[in-house]
């Protein structure tokens, strides 16, 4: 039997009992200085289906109602020993992440362009060989990607200026799709969520050519990853 893990928090006590993935009871394991929310899992694989995905998200969302957790990715199965090893190896990084997200929630904005994406056109050269045509096509593709990346950076900067100091931390993911320009995750203090929504609502009117998909509050999924450093005899790699 393994443990299915949902999220990790600073030590917590007296929590209600919840149902998690595959209908199992969720409990809090005390690991080092942390509480890890987990449930027993009998099997080798976790199925990605509507029930399991929503159960995973629901446990994290319920913990979020009490404190800000660091969520584990869906499908994480571990033994207690593996969990102990992971926590002791990453203790400082986890503490530092928890300090960063304390009192905050994640808000997401996906910005979609309403313009039709530019389509590649022929170069007009009737003597163009297939090889040349391929290279022209490639060049147009690269230029298009560069333009979209520049536009995404400009929009993210504009958005940050609109939101001002209520955003604690930002993650920007420029996208390669034709119409989704950028996905931005903002870490926002809980008490500032209403203000955040109000500022976004105002900002939307300034850019009618863009569509905004706004969601949240979420646990800080986009701010949970830790970059591991492997210390060796030769330094840090």
């Amino acid at each position: 039997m393994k443990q299915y893990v949902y999220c990790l928090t600073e030590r917590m006590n007296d929590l209600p009992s919840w149902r998690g993935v595959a209908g199992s009871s969720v409990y809090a394991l005390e690991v080092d200085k942390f509480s890890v929310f987990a449930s027993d899992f009998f099997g080798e694989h976790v199925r990605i289906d509507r029930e399991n995905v929503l159960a995973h998200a629901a446990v994290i969302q319920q913990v979020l109602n009490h404190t800000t957790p660091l969520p584990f990715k869906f499908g994480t199965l571990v033994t207690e020993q593996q969990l102990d090893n992971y926590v002791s190896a990453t203790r400082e990084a986890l503490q530092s992440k928890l300090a960063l997200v304390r009192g905050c929630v994640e808000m997401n904005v996906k910005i979609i362009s309403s313009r039709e994406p530019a389509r590649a056109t022929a170069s007009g050269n009737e003597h163009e060989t297939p090889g040349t045509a391929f290279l022209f096509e490639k060049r147009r593709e690269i230029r298009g990607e560069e333009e979209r990346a520049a536009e995404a950076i400009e929009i993210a900067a504009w958005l940050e200026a609109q939101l001002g100091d209520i955003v604690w931390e930002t993650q920007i993911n420029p996208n390669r799709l034709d119409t989704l320009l950028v996905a931005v995750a903002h870490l926002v203090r809980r008490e500032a969520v209403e203000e955040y929504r109000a500022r976004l609502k105002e900002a939307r009117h300034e850019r009618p050519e863009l569509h905004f998909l706004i969601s949240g509050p979420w646990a800080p999924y986009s701010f949970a990853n830790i970059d591991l450093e492997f210390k060796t005899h030769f330094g840090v790699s």
Partner: protein
Amino acid sequence: MSFEQIIVSGNVESVEETELSLLETLDHVLNRGLVIAGEITISVADIDLIFLGLNVMLSSVETAQEVLRQREKKAE
């Protein structure tokens, strides 16, 4: 459970909102979060959401665009 706000440039109807909530949830739980190396074991066989596991972002955008198209049609 409730995901408080999913807004596509304004209000969306409840069915669309539910669908977007699920897509956004998938985007979060499958793509982000703490990773314990080598310990994610998932199966995606015989389910209706398999396409989302492969490219959640793409699906999210397509759904969002569909919502926008429907809104524009209604406004005409």
